[in-house]
């Protein structure tokens, strides 16, 4: 019945995630101050932020080893604010550019 593995506390894994979060933070700060095109910069920064947030949720909050129902309960509702964000920010930007 259960599709959830019990939480195993691998300290080595926690330090690996910590190192990844540190590297991604340094990369974000470097990209924010680099002379790159704005769209590319924003895309890169958002992708890295979402990667960091996902790492925290999956490994530090142990969502990776939770049951499917809990994973879906947590992740699915975020599709709606993401959709609202895309539509509303795109609309505000379009009005400004018009």
């Amino acid at each position, binding site marked *: *019945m*259960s599709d*959830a593995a*019990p*939480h195993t*506390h691998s*300290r080595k894994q*926690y*330090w690996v995630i*910590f190192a990844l*979060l*540190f590297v991604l*933070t*340094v990369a*974000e*700060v470097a*990209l*924010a*101050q680099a002379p790159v095109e704005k769209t590319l*910069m*924003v895309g890169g*920064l*958002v992708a*890295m*932020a979402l990667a*960091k*947030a996902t790492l*925290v*949720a999956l490994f*530090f*909050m*142990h969502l990776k080893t*939770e*049951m499917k*129902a*809990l994973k879906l*309960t*947590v992740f699915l*509702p*975020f599709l709606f*604010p993401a959709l*609202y*964000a895309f539509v*509303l*920010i*795109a609309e*505000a*930007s379009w*009005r*400004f550019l018009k």
Partner: protein
Amino acid sequence: MSSAAAVAGEHEGHGAHAHVLPPDEYFGEATAGKLGMWIFLLSDAFSFGGLLLAYGILRGGAQVWHHIQGQGGWTAETEPTLGINFTAGLTFLLICSSVTMVMAVASSAEKNRKATLVWLGLTALGGALFLGGQFKEYFGLFGSEGLIKEGLVFGHSAYASTFYVTTSFHGAHVLTGTIYILITLARTAMGKTDANEIEILGLFWHFVDLVWILVFTFIYLV
């Protein structure tokens, strides 16, 4: 160790207050407290989502977003640029505190009370230092001028208002989390907590870290 197993195995010294539910078909051995915390975190995430959404809409439609003299025809008051490197340091501090918290959760699952207390203490220290950093950023400290004195005043522009509303709402979460950790630390020292309680506390603290990752990117970097 699963949280329910931890609860079942650690009743010493704190009475029978942790009610273990039978395994659920969909949520397994997750306790009611843990599910309750997840539901609270979802609602809290939507609060932050609303703030970030408002920020994105205001910024997307703004003629001039950041009022810097000489840019966008703006000639009046100049607003300071946010200190990315200092805030990156605060971000690193919060990531470190997430690691110390997950170590506290691991130690409590292994029933190592002494290690749990040390890791919880370090996490609370991280939270307190973060709050100190945010105070310095707003009001200045040790001779440095804060953002308010430099001209970033709440209500003077959408740039300033969205910055203060979003970062202070997060700061209120860090303050709440730090107090929550200190209370749990005291209760752990008295032998009144179990692995389930520490895991629920951990969920809240990691959420505070997770939200800051997004706030740091959208407010400071983009």
